């Protein structure tokens, strides 16, 4: 049922690609009709930098459907190197490793098994970078 939705969102979920308004610079992870900030119709396709800084995080303990087997899982608000802010699940961290301001990098991971058809959906997650300097 939701396969077309997954397919049309793949470029963002797989490679952090989206559309930047050439007039005001606003990033859209979806293909915009008009810029959500300045209503311009001119966009450049861009790939966001795959690394940045963790601004804030939390842990989901009472998960939504299709995430029952993942809980508890961590969610981060990340500021990428170009200043774009995105939300992501966090992965590959050790206990006590999550702190504000640590450097994080994007990785490709399995995210969920969708619906009764059992389609395995992949996407980006972020993990602490090896080098924190």
């Amino acid at each position, binding site marked *: 049922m939701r396969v077309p*939705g*997954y397919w049309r*969102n793949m470029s963002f*979920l797989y490679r952090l690609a989206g559309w930047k308004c050439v007039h005001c610079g606003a990033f859209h*992870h*979806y293909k915009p009709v008009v810029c*959500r900030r300045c209503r311009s119709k001119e966009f450049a396709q861009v790939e966001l930098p795959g690394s940045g800084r963790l*601004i*804030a*995080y*939390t*842990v*989901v*303990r*009472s*998960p*939504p*459907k*299709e*995430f*029952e087997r*993942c809980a508890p*899982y961590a*969610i981060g*608000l990340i500021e990428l190197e170009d200043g774009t*802010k*995105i*939300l*992501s*699940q966090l992965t590959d961290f050790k206990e006590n490793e999550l702190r*504000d301001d640590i450097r994080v990098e994007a990785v490709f991971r399995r*995210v*969920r098994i969708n619906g009764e058809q059992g389609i395995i*959906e992949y*996407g980006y997650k972020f993990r602490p970078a090896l080098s924190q300097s």
Partner: protein
Amino acid sequence: MAGVYVAGVGFTKIAEHWDKDLEQLMAEAAVKALEDAGVSTVNAIYVGCALGEHLQCQANLGALMAECAGLTGVPAFRAEAADASGAAALYSGFCDIASGRSEAVLVVGGEKLSDGLSEEVSSGTLMMSGRSWYEGFMGIDFYAMSALLYRLYSKRYGDEGIPFFPVISHEHAEGVAHAQYPFKIALDRVLESPFIAEPLRMLEVSGIGDGAAAAVLVSEELARRLKSPKIRMFISSATDYVNPFDREDPLRLQSVMLSVSRVLEHAGVSRSELNMVELHDSASILGALCLESGGFSPPGAAGKLAMKGEFGLNGRLPCNTFGGLKARGHPFGATAIYQVAEIYLQLAGRAGKNQLDKARTGLAISLSGVGAAAFTSLLKMEEV
């Protein structure tokens, strides 16, 4: 624009109503509101519900509700704006009367969250607070979004007093017949409750319950003929980027700021004239952000003012006078109508033990998700 008046209200207790379908629960509130107003029929019905398709596999709630309330034949349809759906229905009903097309409308909101498993309700909050292919895909539900806002708030201002908002709401809900949790809780219990998404604790968020609320809105001419007190209603709304982290400042809810100032301007009321405010405290932090963005507290100060007692029933600006979303309850599509009904009871002098000394003007803020839309309703007692 013609004046719009609230002529009567009705609601059910917020509880787990396992023995009733959604439309039956709504019809119960609707019939009470019609009886309260003293009208036998209306020109139109507006229904608010957020998750009917998701939890009950039920759409077409307008016609169903009309049938259950014995009003088949009357135009009826549903308005949806996530957990502000009840406010969207009020907005539709308001416009209908204000335009002069209708003389009387029935606005009904209902939600039956106990029909779902906890993970289904959690999926529901995720549908209401984010995009299905962004936050939804990553399992970032309403609690996680609120928790991230809470973190940013604590970093900028500290979290002093934020966990006190549930304490105020529960204090006001004590002994309230329609409240889901009609008892007090101490601050220690809030602080000791487990995290739902840190730093947000279980006792800082509203629970899962079923409820329905209704209001009859009428024209000025009909209001004059009815026995009910002359309580005029105003409502405004505004939207914002759905993801709060796409906004210029996630801790300033523009939708609240805009809808509050618009409604005050429309009603010709200043902030200092308000006798009470109903907040959208689906999470403690959102209660604080509503106050700050609405201009009722300086940024970063709502928690401290709460600790000082400013928002108690005897405080400077009483908030959540029957328990708010936290303690009265938060059945999404019904919530905004409960808020308006409670202000109505205060203004009409029918608030029982929760009656404020002076209640002539009250305001209610209703949010969808984390402020993607806000509706602000204002009720004002008019001299006859």
